[in-house]
């Protein structure tokens, strides 16, 4: 099959591309960023997904499947850009897909869609609405992109749409929201809170996407890996140390003392868990994660050891 991947030059995009090539597919990539050591046989287009040349890629290559991974978080882009990329980009993908006969679109979304709060349940199921928009406005564009992609299920019935709400990734590329959060030697924790964190190895992200393509999955699905672990365990197992901050001082401490910079809304995600139930996805695709939590944390630790001074 011919598969177009948007955001292919990102760490996860590359792994997904390799996995799909390995599975015998023809892969076309779109990204603003370059991928110098892209493998042979991969057709790479350095264009912005929202630009006219991107439409031409759809027109000339005529992919059967699109894997849309060109979304960004608050870590990468400021809010206005983010809205343009996440919403404008997602809209462009679906419009081009409808116009140029794409059969299947896979939207790689995030499990933070559900939001974290003191009264949100563990193990969210796909039918739940997003609940943390008010406390974490930096997530609003991703939530909107998720719902917009989901609306393709009824707007564009001729296209099979898969919306995946994937948990954090953790592995040797060190890419992703969680990996960036625990990158430094000290990881901030709010005194008296130790939420569960759910993550999966990047190899399993690729597996899940490949399976979605293979099974022509239709609908909205949570995707997770091994069982979640408390933040304190994650910090210890990745060789970091917890930096305990009282809640009132949390905002002020972020970005100082070698701690990561976080938007104010992220506080709720350091206090409360976002944990999803991926039983439906496992049942529909036969997916099983291949890397457990111990191994994922070990690989991250080895790829990003803490330099002792």
């Amino acid at each position, binding site marked *: 099959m011919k598969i177009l991947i948007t955001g292919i030059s990102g760490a996860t995009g590359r792994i997904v591309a390799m996995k799909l090539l390995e599975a015998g597919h023809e892969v076309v990539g779109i990204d603003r960023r370059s991928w110098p050591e892209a493998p042979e046989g991969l057709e790479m287009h350095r264009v912005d997904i929202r630009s006219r040349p991107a439409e031409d890629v759809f027109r000339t290559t005529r992919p059967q499947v699109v894997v849309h991974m060109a979304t960004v978080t608050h870590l990468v882009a400021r809010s206005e850009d983010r809205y343009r990329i996440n919403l404008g980009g997602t809209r462009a993908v679906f419009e081009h897909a409808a116009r140029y006969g794409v059969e299947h679109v896979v939207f790689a979304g995030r499990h933070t869609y559900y939001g974290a709060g003191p*009264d949100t*349940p*563990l193990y969210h199921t796909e039918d739940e609405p997003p609940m943390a928009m008010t406390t974490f406005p930096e997530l609003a564009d991703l939530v909107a992109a998720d719902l917009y992609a989901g609306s393709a299920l009824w707007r564009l019935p001729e296209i099979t749409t898969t919306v995946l709400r994937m948990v954090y990734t953790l592995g040797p590329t060190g890419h992703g929201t969680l990996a960036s959060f625990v990158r430094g030697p000290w990881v901030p924790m709010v*005194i*008296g*809170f*130790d939420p569960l964190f759910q993550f999966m190895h990047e190899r399993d992200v690729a597996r899940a996407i490949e399976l979605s393509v293979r099974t022509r999955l239709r609908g909205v699905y949570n995707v997770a890996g091994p069982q979640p672990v*408390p933040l304190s365990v994650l910090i210890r197992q990745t060789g970091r140390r917890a930096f305990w901050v009282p*809640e009132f001082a949390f905002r002020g401490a972020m970005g100082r003392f070698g701690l990561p910079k976080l938007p104010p809304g992220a506080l709720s995600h350091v206090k*409360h868990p976002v944990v999803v139930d991926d039983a439906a996805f496992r049942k529909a695709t036969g997916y099983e994660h291949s890397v457990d939590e111990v191994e994922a944390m070990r690989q991250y630790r080895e790829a990003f050891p803490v330099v002792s001074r």
Partner: protein
Amino acid sequence: MSLFVSPEVKGRIERLEIPWNRFGVDRYGVSKKHLALGFTAIEPFYRHYFSVKALGVEHVPRHGRCMLVGNHSGGIAIDGAMVIASMFFAKEPPRLAQGMIEKFLNRMPFASMLSSRFGQLTGLPEHAERLLEDERLLMVFPEGAKGTAKLYKDRYSLVRFGTGFVRLAMKTKSPIVPFAFLGGGAAFPTVANAELLGRLVGAPYVPIVPYLVPVPLPVRLEVEYGEPIYFEGTGAESDSVISGYVEEVRTAIATMIERGRERREDFASRTLANLSEGEKRVIGRAVSLEPEPGHGHARATDREGGAS
């Protein structure tokens, strides 16, 4: 860590039928290490301070989903803690009872973290259903926060029951084991509930006791488990059907409370008969908390008659 954990607790933790990961944490964040410390801390209270008497623990199934449903007794969570302790210390093999805690606790530092490590999840229907589907032992107090707010004089009464628990039991096909908890009202004799103070600390209210340091008194506590009750159905029945079932559970609990109360009063009068005059005077002063004689024997049921 192991220095502070009693060997018995350690052995019992190992026998809990909970799937742990390699860090000794289960999928809900329950932690073996925290359970070990928690049960070691609670053991002297369970065995000596309150010398809890647990009756009928054999009615609780050894494995699989089950809902423990009982009355609130005492203004702070002694009842829940001692039910959990009785399932851990008196049940063979031990089981971890998992309660549904008040939402406000999850906003508080430490309370939020510890409740999760001990398996006490926020009181949400999603949590209750998931735990039962996962073959856990769920502990439910259908009286809710109004039940913990009961004053000393109402300690043998039941307030209005919610109905959600019966629907959930039917939907998940879980047996309901009713239990009666006695003595919590005497151990922590609430004379008033301060709502304003509660608002200041982020709780619905703060119970006030008639002595200076608000710690529970060393009163003998009892928990009696009754025979399991099964309801056939889907849980989608009309309210009129469900409320009949709720009443059945409520009556089972009220009957056990009444029986336990007579037992306790018997015990008290026998003990009083053997006391010296001086001891009687001291106790008389403490017992002046008792309600007016006429009120004392109101039946355990029907404090809020509109409940059914």
